[in-house]
Each structure stands twice: as C-alpha cells, then as structure tokens.
C-alpha cells in the first residue's frame, strides 16, 4: 500500500505543480485588472515545448543535455520522501531525513548550475553566478531552520516534526516556531524566485533563475520547466505541511479516501499561499541585486533569534 501511496504522491506532485504556477500567474494578472492567461497555460506551454525539437549548443557536453532529466528525477524522488499528502512516512521516506532532503535539493541546484555553465552562454553564466552567490548564503539559513526544528522535535524527520507541531500547542504557538516559520517564508521567497528577490521577466539586471536555462529549447526546456514547477510545489508543500499548517495531514490509520480528500485540502492550502505570493508580487518592487543579501541577512537573523528564543525560554 505504501508503494501505491508513493506512486499517487509523485503523480499528484507532477500533475498539480504546473496548475499551482498557472493559478498564481492568473491571480497576479487579475490583481492588476488584466484578464491574464488561463490557469492551464503552464500545461499548454509544456505540451507545446514537448512537441518541439531540442537545440543543443555545439560546444556543450552531455551534462547540458541530461541535466534537466537528472533534476526532474531528483525532485520526483523528493516528492516521495517528504510529507506532501501523508503525515506518515511512505515507502522511500527512510532514504533521507530533513538534512538529506536538503542535500537532494542542493544536488539538483548544483546539476542545474553545471548544465547552465555547460551551455557556454554568457547569460546562463550570469544567472549561475548570481544563483550560486545567493544559494551559498541561503543554504546555511535553511540548515539553521532545520536544526531548530530538530531541537524542538529531537529528530530530523519531517514527519515527526509535523506530528510534534500538530500535537503540542506550546510549540506551535511558541516564539521559536514563529521565528523559524518567518525565516523559512523568506527563504521560500528566495528559492521560489518571488519578488522582491526576482521578477518573472527576462530583464538582464534582475535575472537569476530565468537566466540559467537560456540555451534550452524544446523538450529539454519542457523538462527543465516541469522540474522547476515541481520544486516550487514541493517547497511550498513542506512549508505548509510541516511549518505553517501541520494540521489535517492524513495519519497512518486515516485510510485511502482521506488521502484523496486531503489532496483537495492541500490544494486549498496552496491556494492561500499563492494568494500571499501574488499579493507580494504585485505590491512589492524588486530589490537591486546587492540588496538581496540584506534580505538574506534578515532571514538569517530571524532563524538565529529562534535559537536564542529557545535558550531564553527553556
């Protein structure tokens, strides 16, 4: 049964991820009083790209060609080991704890950077350099956040953390959890490429993640984009299911039907979060590139204050 749930989970993440992106874009357009694209536009884009021929730079190596497929594979694996539709570990969950999950995210990011560098495009290099600079500072914050949740729950297992937060109001309503959630939200804005860190345009001055797949086209680009959608979906799910709203995620005894019902509830949770993202994206202006590091410093400060609050309130 656990294998079936894992299969359902991976299918759910792969199929629903483009929808979440589509809904966010549609909401942003509606906020700006525009009609906007259909919520299914990312699916149309993927379908179109899958039908097109892939062009590969002559100077690139197989790293460029196979990079997106490896990245997609890693995110698919992450979808199976993190608490997305269940609050109990599925078949592959023992493969990695929170730190291990972070390692897989890091591996996917590294492969993306290698393949971008391998394209030999100046723009891809520019994006890689920026993404690496920001990522190098965002990763320690993420690790600090995980450590703090580890301190609360005495484990690095995201399923146990979900269980601790949903069952103990003294931790859920504690300063430590508040700071950790705020810091993770800021990291989430960075990792999912939202404003004020990154705008969804191809303006050279602000490009970070948009610049990296500059040389990709056709089927390869479709896979790259799909993997990016899945990354956003997984990170948002972790934020909601583990940190912000750990309630309602089906437990081991809940049964198959409750998991199916929860998928709908999970989409509603995601809808709430993407409305917040859409509001931020339509009201906040983009930081200049070097100001992103101030944003990171504040995120680090919040994560750090979580640890201080823990020791003070102990």
């Amino acid at each position, binding site marked *: 049964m656990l294998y079936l749930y894992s299969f359902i989970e991976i299918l759910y993440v792969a199929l629903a991820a483009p929808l979440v992106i589509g809904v966010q874009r549609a909401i942003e357009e509606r906020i700006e009083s525009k009609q906007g694209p259909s919520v299914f536009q990312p699916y149309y884009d993927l379908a179109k790209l899958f039908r097109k021929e892939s062009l590969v730079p002559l100077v690139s190596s197989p790293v460029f060609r196979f990079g997106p497929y490896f990245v997609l594979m890693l995110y698919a694996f992450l979808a199976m080991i993190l608490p997305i539709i269940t609050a109990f570990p599925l078949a592959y969950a023992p493969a990695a704890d929170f730190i291990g999950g972070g390692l897989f995210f890091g591996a996917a990011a590294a492969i993306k950077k290698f393949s971008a560098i391998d394209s030999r495009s100046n723009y891809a290099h520019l994006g890689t350099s920026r993404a690496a600079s920001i990522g190098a500072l965002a990763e320690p914050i993420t690790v600090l956040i995980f450590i703090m949740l580890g301190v609360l729950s005495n484990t690095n297992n995201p399923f146990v953390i979900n269980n601790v937060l949903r069952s103990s109001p003294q931790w859920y309503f504690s*300063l430590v959890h508040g*700071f950790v959630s705020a810091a993770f939200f800021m990291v989430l804005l960075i990792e999912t490429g939202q404003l004020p860190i990154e705008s969804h345009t191809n303006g050279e001055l602000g490009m970070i993640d948009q610049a990296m797949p500059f040389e990709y086209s056709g089927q390869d680009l479709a896979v790259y984009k799909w993997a990016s959608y899945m990354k956003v979906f997984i990170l948002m799910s972790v934020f909601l299911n583990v940190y912000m709203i750990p309630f309602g995620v089906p437990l081991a005894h809940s049964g198959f039907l409750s998991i199916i019902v929860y998928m709908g509830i999970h989409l509603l949770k995601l809808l709430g979060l993407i409305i917040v993202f859409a509001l931020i994206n339509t009201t906040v202006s983009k930081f200049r590139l070097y*100001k992103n*590091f*101030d944003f*990171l*410093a*504040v995120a*680090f*400060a*919040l994560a*750090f*204050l979580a640890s*201080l*609050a823990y*020791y*003070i*309130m102990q």
Partner: protein
Amino acid sequence: MDQIFEILGFLLIVLTLFMQWEVYVKSTIVLFAISSFIVAIFLVLLGLRNPQEEYLLFVLAGLTVVVRGITIPVIINKALHRLHEKPWRVREDKPIMGIGGSILVSLGLIMLSYFLYQGSLYGILKVKSGSVPIALFLQASLLIITHKHAYIQMIGFLVMENAVVMLSGWVFGGLPFIVEAGVILDLLGLVVVSSLIMRVRENTILHEGDNYNTELRG
C-alpha cells in the same frame, strides 16, 4: 504573563532589526511608532500583573501611546515635511556599515547581552529573559552608531529609551511613576528641540546643496 513579555520583547528586537534594514526615514518613523505601541501594551500587562500600581501603569501606558506612539512620530514627520520637498524619499544614503553587516553585528550584540546577563545579573534577579531589554538597548546604540542621518539617530535614542522602560518594568519591577512620566515628557522636549535645531540649521547656517545638512554634527 512572562511568555507574553518575552514575545513583546522579541517583537521589539525584530522591529529594531527592521529599522536597521530600512533606509527610508519615514518607514523608520512608522516602525518606531509601532514599537512604542508595543511598549504601551507591555505597560498595560505590567499593570495587570502588579495590581497595587495598576492605575499608575495604565496612565503611563496612555502617556506612552499619546507621546511616543503618536505625538513624537507626528512631530518628526512634520519636521521632515518642512525640511524636504519629497519627504518620502529622505533616506540614509551613507551608512557607516553595510546593512547586512550591521544586522550581523546586531545579532552579535544580542548574543553578547545574553551572555553578559547570564554571567552577571541573572544570578541576582532570576528573570530568565532579562537580557532582551539589554539587547534592545545595545541594538539601539548600534542604530545610532551606524547611521549618520539625524532623524534615524534620534529614533535610535528613543528606542534606547523604550529599552530602558522595558528593563525597569520587567527586570527591576518598575521605576517611580514621576520618573517615568518625566522621562516621557523629556523625550517630547528632545524631539521638539532637535527638530527646531535642524530647521534653524537648514535655514540659517547651511547653504543649499550641502550634503551634510541632515546630520547632527556641527
């Protein structure tokens, strides 16, 4: 009740970090007003905890809201409007230290205050989170040191005063009402006089185009 005090104390620390992050003076004034309202909530809660001083602490909370939360921000805002054509664009454009670096130093000061307090006063006072107002005090000092803009320096001083109110009420059980009320009125005087000095300097001493006309130094 102690947990609520801790939450309020940490909120003030976060607000001061945001002041360190913020470059626009108008936003810093708003942040200061919010922090003053938090101090007022703290005083109300302190009053509820100490029924024998309830009445005086409620009066003090009211004074804090009126003077620190409303009047002082309004006075600084008005001074800003008088001195600058586009007050919403007035900003700290030459901080002594980069924002990211100053936030990290601020964290270092918070740690320092924690260890200092644990190693000294905690043994006597037995208040677990007594390091929070001390941290706030040091953060406000850093805000003054790292900024050259007169308004932000003034706000740094006012935040220091907020920290002292927190420290006296939370850790030492409160100062006499007359002292606290006197300090609040002193602050009002300080802001009014500073605003006047800045205006007089602008109109009489300095010439248009001087780029140091927003600093407090001679």
